[in-house]
């Protein structure tokens, strides 16, 4: 027979035990909650992003009829609808094959390009495989990047989801690292290494950006506003006709206006303020109404201070470039206040895009094959940034000086007479072109008196020899100014040279037309031009 005391102790023990179990149970429940949080967080992103694998193949810029070996790059794409994936344009440039992989499954599935805009550096992809998007969830794009709470960068790596706690830093206006639009970017400190391949950035479960570049632990992120504008544009239908792109300050050249002496000299009363306009290239935003030596005091109602900043309602001090990008489209007309010739003026500025192809020497030739022509062994092609990169990252000191200064001093602006620079890059030596075997990297001014502004011009000009001779006139240089060749044997010589040097095609014309840059600016583009006759 148990005593009552023993029974009470047993009850106490039982109570303790039950209490302990209850306590343990609840802590088990709590730890399960933590596990659940982790799994949820994981799951929260798992079905919103896919791994991307792109085979890229670039042209051999020195021998533009040939392609180099294909390369494979990997990155990320974000699901933004039940049909579309969003990623960086430079990841999919010159793509021969695009594949995606979802949910950590080992299964690369072909994808295809719907639209790309290399100026803003964004692209849309889709996957034709039926049901591909069924187990994927579109990410909501946030209204802006002003956010509290945890921020995560996310990517698939070797079929594991990597989630980094990221810390948003400043918001600042930059020229798009692989594009040409000047707009606000988010700087983000991330734990990822080797990022910058379109890793999406989430605040909670909203997409606030796409990482396009990373330097050490500092990521540069295209913000939500831009992603949203792109994703909601006709790009989603792949409609290149209706797609307008993004407006940009682009090639407009200005400087800060902090010098009281300069301001007083120009006659502007009060504190130094506004941006001092230096050059207004043809086709730039402002071409219609700005002039060199204008002080731009206000744009679209926003006052501009002496270092070119305005007060953004959310992000604080930003460079005025952002005004034309946010909430505007190319073609929009916005008011501006300038100080010109000692007077205040109200003008209207037509917003324009700033594609690389608007430059005289485009930095990026967006995904088209390099135009070229071979005649008599002379290799003609357009001068562009891709060609200059043959000399590596150090091209400014390694490339021929004349090409470097053409790019730096003249390259920002076209004029109606000069839309491109055509080079003779080299001569494929043969008997026909003896005496000229050393000709290399010389810009062409005219052929047979016909001014040369395009590969099509070269083709046309060679069709008009005079007195049985073909003459190639270069811009003045210290090597050779004029090449003289026999006209009657040009065709036969060319055919033989093409065969000898295994050049499959004599001619590749540019795809598409040059961008429409509108009417010439009323006044003042680059300060000087060797190209003027």
């Amino acid at each position, binding site marked *: 027979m148990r005593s009552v005391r023993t029974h009470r102790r047993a009850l106490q023990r039982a109570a303790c035990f039950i209490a302990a179990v209850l306590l343990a149970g609840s802590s088990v429940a709590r730890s399960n909650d933590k596990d659940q949080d982790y799994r949820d967080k994981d799951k929260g992103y798992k079905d919103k992003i896919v791994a991307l694998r792109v085979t890229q193949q670039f042209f051999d810029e020195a021998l533009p009829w040939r392609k180099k070996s294909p390369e494979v790059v990997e990155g990320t794409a974000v699901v933004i609808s039940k049909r579309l994936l969003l990623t960086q344009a430079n990841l999919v440039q010159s793509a021969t094959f695009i594949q995606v992989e979802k949910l950590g499954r080992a299964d690369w599935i072909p994808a295809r390009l719907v639209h790309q805009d290399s100026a803003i550096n964004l692209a849309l992809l889709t996957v034709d495989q039926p049901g591909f998007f069924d187990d994927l969830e579109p990410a909501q794009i946030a209204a802006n990047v002003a956010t509290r709470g945890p921020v995560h960068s996310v990517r698939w790596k070797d079929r594991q989801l990597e989630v980094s706690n990221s810390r948003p830093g400043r918001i600042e206006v930059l020229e798009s690292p692989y594009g040409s639009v000047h707009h606000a970017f988010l700087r983000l400190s991330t734990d990822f290494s080797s990022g910058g391949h379109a890793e999406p950035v989430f605040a909670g479960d909203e997409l606030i950006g796409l990482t396009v570049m990373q330097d050490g632990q500092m990521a540069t992120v295209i913000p939500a506003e831009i992603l949203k504008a792109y994703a909601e544009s006709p790009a989603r239908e792949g409609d290149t006709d209706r797609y307008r792109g993004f407006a940009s300050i682009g090639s407009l050249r200005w400087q800060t206006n902090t010098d009281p002496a300069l301001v007083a000299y120009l006659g502007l009363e009060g504190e130094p303020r506004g941006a001092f306009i230096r050059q207004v290239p043809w086709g730039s935003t402002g071409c219609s109404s700005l002039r060199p030596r204008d002080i731009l005091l206000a744009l679209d109602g926003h006052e501009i201070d002496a270092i070119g900043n305005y007060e953004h309602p959310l992000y604080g001090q930003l460079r005025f470039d952002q005004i034309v990008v946010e909430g505007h489209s190319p073609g929009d007309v916005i008011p501006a206040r300038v100080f010109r010739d000692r007077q205040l003026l109200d003008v209207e500025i037509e917003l324009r895009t700033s594609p690389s192809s608007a430059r005289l020497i485009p930095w990026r030739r967006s995904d088209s094959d390099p135009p070229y022509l071979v005649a008599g062994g002379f290799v003609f092609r357009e001068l562009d940034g891709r060609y200059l990169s043959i000399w590596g990252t150090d091209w400014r000191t390694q490339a021929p000086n004349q090409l470097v200064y053409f790019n730096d001093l003249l390259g920002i602006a076209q004029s109606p007479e000069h839309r491109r620079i055509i080079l003779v890059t080299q001569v494929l030596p043969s008997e026909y072109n003896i*005496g000229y075997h050393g000709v290399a990297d010389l810009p062409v001014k005219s052929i047979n008196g016909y001014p040369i502004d395009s590969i099509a011009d070269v083709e046309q000009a060679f069709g008009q020899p005079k007195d049985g001779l073909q003459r190639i006139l270069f811009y003045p240089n210290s090597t050779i100014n004029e090449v003289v060749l026999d006209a009657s044997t040009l065709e036969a010589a060319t055919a033989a040279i093409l065969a000898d040097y295994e050049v499959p095609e004599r001619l590749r014309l540019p795809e598409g037309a040059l961008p429409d840059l509108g009417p010439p600016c009323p006044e003042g583009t680059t*300060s000087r031009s060797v190209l003027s006759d």
Partner: protein
Amino acid sequence: MPLVGSEKIRVKHGLSIALWFAAALASTGCPESHNGKTLIERSVVRIVNHSQRGDWHAPWAPQAPTYSGGSGFVIEGGRVMTNAHVVSDARMILLYLHDDPTPHEARVKWIGHDCDLALVEPVESGLLDHLPALEFGDLPEMGSTVETFGYPAGGQRISSTRGVVSRIEKAVYAHTGADSHLTVQTDAAINPGNSGGPVIQDGRVAGVAFQASAELENVGYFIPTEVIDHFLKDVSDGTYDGYPDLGVQVVNLENPAARRDSKLGPEESGVRVEFVYPKSSADGFIREGDVLLAIDGHPIANDGSIELDGLRVGHEQLLDRRQAGEQVPLDVLRDGEHLHISVPMQVYLPFNAYRRRYDELPRYYVYAGLVFVPLNTELIATYGDSVPEHLLYELYFRPIEEPQAVRRESVVLLRRLDHEVNGYMAWYRDLVVDRVNGHPIESLEELIDAIESNKDPYQVFEFAYYGRIGVLDRAAADAANAEILRIYGVPEDRNL
């Protein structure tokens, strides 16, 4: 003729390699030449140059004094011949005679930077009378043996090396970096310190050792007597004028279509003139499109070469033999017509902008802390590898592309001595000045005049390229001038 344009950029400005290993080779002591060698040794001197060079980045004060060693040799007239680069920027020159421990002070009598030669005279007259003057010989033959004598680095005793002549060709003289003359290449070791020493063949001077190859081993160069003769003849009238230039750029006519275009006959050959430098010797005599058929009766081949003394050399070799003021007869084909044109050869002063500079302090002007200097090769050299593109363009390309618009002297706002009065021009540097107060600027003097004669409240500087404009309050700038010079230790506001 100096190199310009793209080739010029590729010539490195560094002088011959500075390998300071002990290279005192003992003389080989062949018995039959023992006496001859001793004779020559007595005439070879060691030269120490205590020098001080200008500073083209901080032009108001010279660089620290330094010293260097070279060699020279006694020639008739009680003088020592050596290289210009051995005695450039001299503050004190000391001669050490053979077996004489006492240094003797000397001064430069004549110096030709464009051919890297100089004549030096001891202060003490008659000092060299007891030493035999070396005589000059002819151009040595390919493959023949030569001996050098000199005082290469490290040793105090004379040294001699021996080698063969391996090439005779026109090459760049590194001292100015912009002049080319005949050069003889040898594998006899020529090292720093050898410079200025004689290269001997058959007891006579065949040349002056002066540079070594930076890229090739066992390759040294000496200046042949042809160039020495040109120099000695030039100074014989009491002034060194320098090498004249014809002032044309030519292109080969190796392609038959090009020859046809130039209306050359089937047996004829030559080179076509593509560019005539404005106000050069050729300006007014030769035109673009002319074909040069012959110089001084020597036919020019389609690659520009002529046959001279049994050698195939560039046609410029004959131009190189001319003194300033002499005529050079040319056979020219112009629009199918044969002409004989005699061109008076003059020195072309604009080419000085491409030469390294010596024995002078840089020109400059400082106003309100803004430092203005002329654009030339010395300024370009201060940038090392990162020369601003527009400066290269302005100096080397614009004269070819816009010969009529090129400034006589481009002036550059080089840098700024920080002060309140110029604080807002902080980013303004390395800029070519286009106008000051509305006046186009073609020289440092014009810039000074535009600034100092200005009575407006502002000094307005407009810069070429990029559309930049800088403004100073004139009263404040004028008032701050003296103070800025004092603070920064600039003794004079200008050197012209």
